[in-house]
């Protein structure tokens, strides 16, 4: 089974990225072997629709679950349609989050945060 984790760096020791749509990287990880593939998230800099395209990217990788911080409404719609489970990661390394996932101690996210939640005070641009 493969899972996707939003990450600020391209290694297992980098931190979880709290943003889903605008995450810097996605690591596609096999939790059993810790083998992983790095995806440079091109949608991070999109003017709009970042969550939709990020979700499409990881859906196309055939993952069964996502670990991230916050997921916006559009990304959630795509992930739900693909029947991908979404888990709220903790502020720690990707590796620590994988361990928690394996121990089933991560909380499952069912609700999206509002649009542009992770864009700070300048968010919500037109």
């Amino acid at each position, binding site marked *: 089974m493969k899972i996707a984790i939003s990450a600020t760096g391209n290694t297992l020791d980098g931190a979880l990225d709290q943003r889903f749509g605008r995450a810097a990287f996605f690591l596609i990880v096999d939790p059993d072997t810790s083998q992983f593939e790095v995806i440079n998230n091109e*949608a991070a800099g*999109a*003017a*709009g*629709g*970042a969550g*939709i*395209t990020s*979700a*499409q990217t990881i*859906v196309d990788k055939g993952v069964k679950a996502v670990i991230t911080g916050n997921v916006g409404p*559009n990304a959630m*719609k*795509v992930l739900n*349609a*693909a029947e991908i489970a979404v888990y709220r990661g903790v502020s720690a390394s990707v590796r620590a989050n994988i361990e928690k996932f394996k121990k089933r101690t991560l909380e499952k996210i069912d609700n999206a945060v509002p649009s542009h939640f992770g864009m700070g005070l300048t968010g919500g*641009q*037109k």
Partner: protein
Amino acid sequence: MKIAVLSGKGGTGKTTVSASLAYSLGACQYIDCDVEEPNGAIFLKPDLQESYQVKVPVPEVDQAKCNGCGACVKVCQFNALAVIKGKVLLFSEICHHCGACSLACQTGAVHEVDRIIGVVETDQVQSFLHGRLNIGEPISIPIIRELKKRINKDLPVILDCPPGASCSVVQSLEDCDYCILVTEPTPFGLHDLKIAVALVKKMGIPFGVIVNKATENQRMIQDFCKENEIGILMEIPFSRKIAEKYSKGILPVQDNPEWIKRFQEVYAKVERGVNQ
């Protein structure tokens, strides 16, 4: 002649200036391009009789014809589509109505349908026009475009622009002959004036400044204009009386005929600025 009134910063007095100018000229066309918060009507009290729906084309997918190839998703520059388990998901509010998805579709499954995003409303003779964008809609450009289609070439036209300096302002300014930049003597006013100046310079439109809420002891706008050789068209003083009338929906020109003369003088200066 088309005169755009903009400011960068909100709340500096765009509507005060553009509505006052329209009121003072009499025979002219006033167009409120601030379609998210149109409020010129509060002061000019038009008898709105015509209403036109503004529609944009958005994709619709015939799932029976769709083979889930994802060509529409790949071609979309705005990330408005996704294909999951062979089914297309649409996010119409993100769509910029370019039609690329329907062109890219090889099976004829994607076609365009109209979606209503707001209205254009006018009085009977189209001397007053404003647009209203529906709540929750992110793209105002098509409504501004519809407003500008109705420009009367035989009259002076005053376009009350949205705040800021982004797409909706650029759309409002395009093809205008002159820009009036309204500002106030505060650090915010000056900061955003500089952005507005950079924008109109880039677009190559002649412009002048109106200082609203002007006082004797705050001269930062005048200093900036002097330094940069920008003409000041008028100063409207910081006045409790003006503010009180304004709060009741009364413009300075509606309260004191002296202001009508002053706004007519502004128009004369604008005419000279255009012809220079």
